[in-house]
């Protein structure tokens, strides 16, 4: 598992677009049904009555020590993501996912043009020359989302009062078992709770040999 979590950048832009004081929040927890917390789970809330899209935002996915920083990066649809390379070698970031097919051929530093994820869905990122490098971008339809901590917990802030369908996504989410979304009522004062259960499956990734800066894995 990726231990190095990196800097959580999106906290900044969540703060930037924070709503007036009357907005509520959802405190959530995600477990795998066996009382194990599920880290990196993206929990998103879709308003029952439809909600306007928020303005386009920006996000960054760094590459440090031949790994993507952030195993899972939830973004809102239309977000432009830049991929700064902090290593002293080149990377070749690509995705063949339906939601976003792109390729940034071998480059150093930060590519000139960020990649705009304009379709909701899951985008699997890879590096052509480092098979083990793997990360996910969850492109959300709604601005109300958050990522679970290592303890499987999190909070979706600044949600206008109303009824929401709260759903969860995770890279290891079992394809066959669509987790039921839970309906949560959000009020202006105080935090609503959502306890979510997901069934996970094994997801294989390429093998990385042990290196000085970190453990290898398969």
């Amino acid at each position, binding site marked *: 598992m990726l231990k190095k979590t990196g800097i959580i950048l999106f906290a900044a832009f969540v703060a930037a677009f924070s709503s007036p004081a009357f907005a509520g929040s959802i405190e959530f927890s995600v477990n795998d049904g066996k009382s194990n917390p599920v880290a990196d789970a993206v929990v998103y809330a879709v308003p029952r009555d439809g909600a306007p899209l928020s303005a386009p935002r920006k996000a960054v996915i760094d590459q440090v020590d031949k790994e993507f920083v952030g195993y899972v990066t939830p973004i809102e649809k239309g977000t432009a993501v830049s991929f700064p390379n902090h290593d002293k070698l080149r990377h*070749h970031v*690509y995705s*063949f996912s339906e939601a976003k*097919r792109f390729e940034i051929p071998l480059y150093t530093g930060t590519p000139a043009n960020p990649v705009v994820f304009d379709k909701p869905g899951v985008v*699997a*990122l*890879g*590096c*052509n020359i480092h*098979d*083990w*490098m*793997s990360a*996910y971008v969850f492109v959300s339809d709604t601005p109300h989302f958050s990522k679970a901590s290592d303890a499987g917990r999190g909070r979706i802030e600044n949600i206008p009062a109303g009824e929401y369908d709260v759903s969860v996504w995770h*890279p290891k989410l079992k*394809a066959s078992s669509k987790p039921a979304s839970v309906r949560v009522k959000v009020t202006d004062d105080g935090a609503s709770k959502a306890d979510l259960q997901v069934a996970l499956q*094994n*997801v*294989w*990734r*390429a093998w990385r040999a042990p290196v000085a800066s970190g453990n290898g894995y*398969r």
Partner: protein
Amino acid sequence: MTSPFRFKSFRARILVFFLGLLVLVQAAVFISVNTASIKNARIQIDEALKITAGVFGRIMKEREARLLEAARLLSGDFAFKEAFGTRDHSTILSALDNHRMRIRADVMTLVSMDGEVIADTLNPEKISGEFGLKNLISSAEESEFGEAASVVFIEDRPYQMAVVPLLVPMPDAWICIGFLIDDRFVQELKALTQTQVSLLSNPQAGASVIASTLPLSEREALKAAFSADGPAQTEMELGGDKFVSFAVPISHGKDKVTALLQRSLDEALSPYKRLKSALILLFALGLALSVAGGVFMARTVTRPVRDLAAGVKRIYEGDYSEPVTVEQEDEIGRLASSFNHMLKGLIERDRVRSLLGKVVSSAIAEELLKKEIELGGEEREVTVLFSDLRGFTSLCERHTPQEILSFLNDYFTRISAVIEANGGVVDKYIGDAVMALFGAPLKNEDDAARAVRTAIGMREALKGLNAEFEAKGLPRLSLGVGVNTATVVAGNMGSITRLNYTVIGDGVNLASRLEGLSKKYGVDIIVSASTLALAPGFVYRELDIVRVKGKSEPVGIYEPVGETGAVDEAVVKEMESYHEGLKLYRERRWDLARERFRALREKSPLSLYAIYEERASGLIENPPPSEWDSTTVFHEK
């Protein structure tokens, strides 16, 4: 009962023993070598098969690893990911085929995560549809790294197949890649391991041979002999050859596949077969040599033994002429030499015995040989017979001593024959006289009668002899015989170095006296009253009652005329008349007696009648005193 293992011939026994020993030892050697050889061959095959099984497993693993490696490479191949990204069937298929050929694999299939075929090199036309090898995918899904490999069947053909996920970089499809398992594969294995390799599938529902290095003709037999549930190691006959088989399961489940590794026992035994034929040759040689040697040895041992046996047989048959010739100095030679000594002793003894039989009567000789010879005797009732030739003295005057001896020998031979025929024993010859015994040394119930019969027989024998003498112009001879029965002493008499078996006593003398009296009474034979009492089966003529010199008791004397019933009626009548006359005489009626004797004399030539006529006349003229008892006293011998 004769055991079948008992041989009559010593030679056969020796031969059988040594040959038996040889065969036993050789057989033991042969059996142990053979057993050890087969055991050894089996051990070698076992080891070879186990090594082969290891090699086989290893090769299968290697192939699996190659497949997995190849699939992994493809999984990380950016170009392929791009091709996959195009979702263009022809491109994907072509890329698969391209990769397949890189490692000479036989099949590559790309399957979606949902189990749908995306592209399949075996079915280029297929662009969708369910993938057949669900189990393979399932085991990959259940594995830690999303990989699996197994032997599977595609359209009834076996493939060694590996599956890994296509990572873009998350798993987005299954890459399947496989090698076909065929005869070429097992032939390669055979070339590597020198072992027959057969792959059998689905053994529960009747095994089928997937691939084999065995010739086609033997595959049916292999199918029949194979049992999936049997032990790993078995033996089976294929094409007349015995194979040690070792089963190695290479896949489980529904499409169970077993590799059967086999080595020919006969092939492994072929070096031992040469040893075996060498052993057989050696055995035959050894046997032949042993037979020859055994026969030779047996002969050298048994020939002298047979010679000895023949010698003993000759001696048993009375032929002492040949000693045994054995020119050996071993035990047999010493035995032969001892045997020859014994033969010498036997010849000596026989000569002595034969001589003894001639010198003494054979009965006495037997008696002497039978017992310890010692002086002294025992009292016995014996009938003694004396015979004497009359007119022999005058015969002597007219003939040379040689002729006399010849006559005498003739006479004695016949007389002795009569005596021996009646069971008597010639005690001695005294000049022309013979003394014979009945009742010593052997006793018979009727010894007295035998003596009387002998006396009569002698008289008859003399008649025959006289007829011969007459024919030769020789004078007739007459005989005097005296027979008496008495208790006498019988035994060996003389000195310890020189002795006779004989009888001694008054009775012997009396017999001799009676013989002497016969001439006086004009009769051939005189028998005493004691003999008459013991031999009643004859007709006797009473002669007189006499007192002989040296004996106080009067003795009645009689002449045996013949056996009862064998005497003429006329003779019996005459005898009755005579006995009446004798009675008158003894009653002192001499006139009447004289008349009677005269009448008898005029009819018969017997001198007895004349004697009594004369005696009666003498008594009439000089009557005796009243104490006259009619006995006749003889003073001379």
